[in-house]
């Protein structure tokens, strides 16, 4: 099941022309060794939207999101099947360089992880240095990324401080700024607020909404209220003890008020999970 940018339901037609701009997952399967953890997931993520991936723990949401930027394959024994299309091109094709993919599809992790050996400014610019991108004005990049991440006002006078001197919420916003510096078109967020206090969480949710004016955001979250606040579309994952699978995906409002599947209704009403 998928939705187009106008919010209309669309069936996935594997032979349809790929003039779709954005990220698209087609018939995704994932394994850890022989253990089948994701079954036949197909989703579309249009530009400038926020999609929430919700569902109880162990359904493979984090695994799925790592398939979108080719981080899944770092785990020994990990395997996948299916396609992930970035503007029509399969990122898993054999001639594709995974490192280049990750420049377009950025990621923010559950536990904030600024680089300890660098100060705030260097952290923001680290993506540029690490990918050896040629960008001209470093100062303006630092300012714009920190502003977009909602951190500029708080740190503009101490760009030389180490990342460790920031609070958890600030560190996470620093990580967001760091990801933005390489100008991705999609930002993946794996439960970015689960280690943070409610105040920081709300700040980051505001940031997400602003980010979605320019890029697509895909966020895994356990917190249904957060999904309801932040996302335009939601995808609900479930598992019956075997591999995780997609139950339904729809506009957030519809999913939460009038879902098509009873299991979705049960989950969003808190009957399980």
């Amino acid at each position, binding site marked *: 099941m998928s939705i187009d940018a106008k919010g209309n339901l669309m069936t996935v037609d594997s032979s349809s022309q790929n003039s779709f701009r954005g990220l698209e997952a087609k018939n995704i399967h994932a394994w850890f060794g022989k253990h089948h953890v994701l079954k036949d997931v197909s989703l579309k993520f249009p530009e400038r939207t926020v999609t929430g991936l919700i569902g109880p723990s162990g359904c493979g949401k984090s695994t799925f999101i790592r398939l979108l930027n080719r981080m899944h394959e770092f785990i020994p024994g990990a395997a996948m099947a299916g396609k992930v299309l970035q503007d029509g091109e399969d990122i898993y094709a054999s001639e594709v360089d995974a490192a280049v993919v*990750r420049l377009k599809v950025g990621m923010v992790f559950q536990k904030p*992880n600024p680089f300890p050996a660098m100060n705030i400014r260097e952290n923001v610019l680290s993506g540029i240095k690490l990918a050896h991108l040629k960008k001209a004005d470093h100062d303006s990049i630092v300012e714009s990324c920190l502003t977009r991440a909602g951190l500029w006002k708080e740190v503009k006078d101490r760009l030389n401080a*180490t990342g460790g001197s920031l609070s958890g919420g600030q560190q996470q916003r620093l990580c967001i700024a760091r990801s933005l510096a390489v100008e991705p078109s999609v930002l993946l967020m794996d439960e970015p607020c689960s280690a943070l206090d409610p105040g920081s969480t709300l700040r980051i949710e505001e940031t997400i909404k602003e980010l979605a004016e320019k890029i697509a955001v895909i966020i895994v979250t356990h917190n249904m209220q957060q999904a309801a606040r932040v996302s335009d579309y939601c995808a609900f994952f479930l598992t019956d003890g075997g591999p995780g699978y997609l139950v339904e995906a729809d506009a957030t409002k519809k999913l939460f008020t009038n879902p098509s599947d009873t299991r979705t209704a049960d989950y969003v009403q808190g009957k399980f999970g």
Partner: protein
Amino acid sequence: MPWQATTRKKVATLMSLVISAVVSFVIVLVTGLAGVDGFALTFFGVSFLAVAIRTFRLDSKKRKDAFVTVAIIATAVLAFSPWMSIFGSVIIKGLRGLRPNFLYETMQTTTPDDELTLGGAGHAIVGSAIMVMIATAITLPLGILSGVYLTEVRGRLTFLVRFVVQSMSGVPSIVAGLFIYTTFVNFTNAFSGMAGALALAILMLPTVARTAEEVLKLVPDDLRSASYALGARQWRTSLMVVLPTVRSGLTTASILGVARVIGETAPLLLTSLSKDSFVFNPFGGPTGSLPTYVFGLLQIGTENAINRAWAGALVLMLIVFILFSSARLIGGKDKR
């Protein structure tokens, strides 16, 4: 700990210890058992007796436990006394011979039997320093590369490399010297400080490589994940993210490597020999070093020579102590 003794028990133990000591002292005087070892033996014998008396009325399990306790303490004392004795004698006897001139004069115009106000070990200290610095310059990069291979690259030879590094730490120091003798010394047709440095490098490498690997293993994986997620390649991740994070750990690795080889004598006997005066050129023929200096004095054996040897031993121990302390201080400084 479940076996904490009550205060009453502690006082009782203390009293019985004192009584045992007095009794042993008397016995030693009477029987003429010689020396510290005689006293120690008597003391533990008397302690066993004291324990037997005190636990007479207790059950066999408690009695056995008490006897074992005394036995273990006795064993521990015996185990620790050699090196405690070494620490003590190095400090006491070494200080006797240590004068400022010891640190900067040489033996060029002094014989080992002269009074200790003449001559010194300056040349030996400088020689050791130069050789160790060269050895570090060789082993640190190789050790780091080894550690990076085992933690970052993780190729197919990982198990073999780790196993070989572990096994190499057992190569006898004289064999390392012998190897350099049959290759480098033979090839350059000369003994030199460089040859000594190479032999020390062989002995240093396993220590540095192993510590480097341990330190790199401590870097949390999410740092690497963050770097890769930003689109960085492996070599940039290793060089710009992982290695800077373990800077102080790698310093520790080299310090521990130096501590390992600074006292090695055997390999130097076959490669750099010894010398009475300052040698600053690593290719300038036989070079003095602290270990060969002390070793030569030991072989001469006169009273003054032995006093010098103790002073040299004290300097050696001080250097090792300083190295260990700095390693401990620096090692805690990695930001994580």
